[in-house]
């Protein structure tokens, strides 16, 4: 049974077509990357899949729930890490985790254990009692990553997972996502960093103007055809126009969809 299935999903904002007949399927245990340029519809896709936005057309299923009719149930089962969202300014990370644990109905002892685990793993234990507004962007991102995983969901949606993180923490998060998927869970991430998708995803879907236009398994690619080539061939332009190292922008930069 697929973790995520969509069929013919459409979403418009006024005259702007954000999603246009989007059809995709993500199996359980996949680390699926949705790759696309700015404004391609990546963030809208995540918002629709997690019941935050209602699509105008189409069918959606996430972990056997329908986010259009039971959004709260869908979000109970999944974790969501939106792009560029900060934890509440006037909470400390410890209090924010208490809040998330309360909303998700986690036992306080289990919550404390998981917080210790994630804090240790991402390395921000000395910041647990600092107000979030006084944390750096990178530290805030660590808090948001922890919050998304606290209830150990089967499926996590992540928008630009490495935004604002230093190279060491980026590497830790990459490893963490890989281990998480190896344990049988599913990750759906959206990014416009080709090298991120190439390095950590088990399958990549390329989206442009709200449509899924290509899919690739990065391990099937070789020197003849890189993910950048596939991307450029489908989105338009020459690979050399993109940049020398295949970045749409500096690694880890946060950009809106």
């Amino acid at each position, binding site marked *: 049974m697929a973790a995520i299935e969509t069929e013919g999903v459409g979403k418009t904002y006024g005259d702007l077509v954000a999603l246009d007949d989007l059809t995709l399927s993500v199996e359980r245990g996949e680390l699926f990357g949705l790759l696309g340029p700015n404004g391609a519809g990546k963030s809208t896709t995540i918002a629709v899949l997690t019941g935050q936005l209602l699509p105008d057309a189409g069918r959606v299923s996430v972990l056997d729930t329908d986010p259009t009719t039971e959004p*709260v149930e869908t*979000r109970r089962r999944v974790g969501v890490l939106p792009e*560029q969202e900060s934890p*509440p300014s*006037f909470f400390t990370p410890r*209090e924010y985790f208490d809040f998330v644990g*309360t*909303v998700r109905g986690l036992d306080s002892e289990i919550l404390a254990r998981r917080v210790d685990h994630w804090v240790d793993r991402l390395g921000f234990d000395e910041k647990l009692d*600092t107000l979030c507004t006084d944390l750096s962007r990178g530290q805030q991102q660590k808090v948001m990553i922890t919050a998304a995983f606290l209830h150990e969901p089967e499926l996590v949606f992540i928008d630009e997972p490495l935004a604002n993180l230093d190279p060491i923490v980026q590497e830790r998060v990459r490893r963490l996502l890989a281990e998480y998927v190896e344990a049988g869970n599913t990750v759906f991430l959206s990014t416009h960093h080709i090298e991120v998708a190439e390095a950590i995803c088990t399958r990549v879907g390329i989206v442009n103007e709200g449509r899924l236009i290509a899919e690739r398994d990065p391990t099937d690619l070789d020197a003849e055809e890189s993910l950048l080539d596939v991307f450029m061939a489908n989105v338009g332009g020459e690979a050399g126009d993109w940049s020398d190292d295949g970045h749409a922008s500096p690694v880890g930069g946060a950009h809106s969809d």
Partner: protein
Amino acid sequence: MSSNAMGANGVTRRVFVGMLREEWRLHARLFGGARFGAFPLFVAAVAAGATWLLASTGTAIPAIVAGLHALVFVFGLHTGTIGFVGRDAIRNLLGDVTLLVFTSRTLPASPRRLVAIFLAKDAVYYAGLFLAPLSVAVAAVAVVTGTDFLPRLPLLWLSVTGTFVLGVLVTFALVGLGGRRSTAAALAVGGLLLAAWWSSGFDPTSLTPYGFYRTPGLATALAGFLPIPVLAVLGMAVYDPTDRRPSRTSEARFAAWRDRLRDDDGLLTKSLLDVARSSGGLWKVVFSGGVLFAVTAFLVGVVEQLTGVSPSTGVSFGALLGLTAFTSYNWLTQFDSPDSYRRLPLPTAAVFRAKFRAFLLLGLPTALGYYALAAAWLGGPPAELAAGGLLAVGVLLYLFGLTVALAGFEPNEFLFDTVLFAAFAGAVSLGLVPVLIVGFVLAPLGPALLAGVVGWGAVLGVAGLLLYRRSVPKWTARYRRG
């Protein structure tokens, strides 16, 4: 670019024009260009309507002008709060925006010079967009009702503009003096000191442009406008352009508050903690209520002075303190947005429910606390005071329901949306004008009028609850449509 360079090569003028354009675009983008363009016309129409209504029910034009100055001063205080408590407040209010006033971090521009230009821009922008239509409207109605007011129009405009700038600068100076955490406390203490001075017989309005308006002359001009440069210099001197602050830590209080409040989903606790931890703490709610209390006291005093009739303490304070609903709800929604809850397994209705409970815990005691203070200070027949208390609760609930219905989670933003603001102003007038006329013009009140006041309060309270209930599904659907 040094300060001197900015002045020498005309950059100051260009930054000023840029800031004006920025302010206009910010508002136009938030509220739709054409709609926002109509805002001055709308302000003039509402001001003319209100002035005509007050004048035709016996309120003298000088009393209306006095009230106008009081309201403009409060508006200035509020504008200063938004502009100068820093980038966090701007971001909380408008999202992640970068304004020219903050560009000293990335450009070689003097931060103090930028702030000075920002202040000048605020004065010019609001003097043209807001204060000119207000002044013209009041003057026009005064002329229509038989007062030879036209020669005083430039004086009125100058005076309300000065009053607005004074309000902005009071906040600016106190923000610098008080420091972030104690700003609201400092403002509250300052207000109390002024009130004490006032009660000893000194007329503080002689140190404002209103004093000059009342008695035009060189001496009154000096006394009335002198506080403006004094506060500007003081504000600049204590302004911290580096915005340095130590990293703040706090003990974990969420769980303890949640348990004490018996708050199963933690949303009520979050709302209250947000207010308590942000700049000014819970004091800012008290201060907002205090400003309205002071304005009401001023209006009651002016009306009594000009007409010789003592307004009903219960009804006048009950009706006007109900307006604290708007500021209280504003504080409760200032630090989050619907988006911040949408990734959690929470229905939007639960978030609104939490806001309502937080409003009852924060807004109700604030309004009733000041009401009790007014009752203790000015006294009145017990029946009137009881009726006024019930009226205050009714008005609070009505304005809460109305604000939620029209603005959802963003009560502050719709102040500049002409259509929404018109709807809000119309609905507020519908609820308040009848009881204000009763309280200010028909006092002392007989049993029939008292029963009417209580009945009207009940109608408003029920209407507010109904508006709130009906608006939750509306906003839930709207947020999901995107």
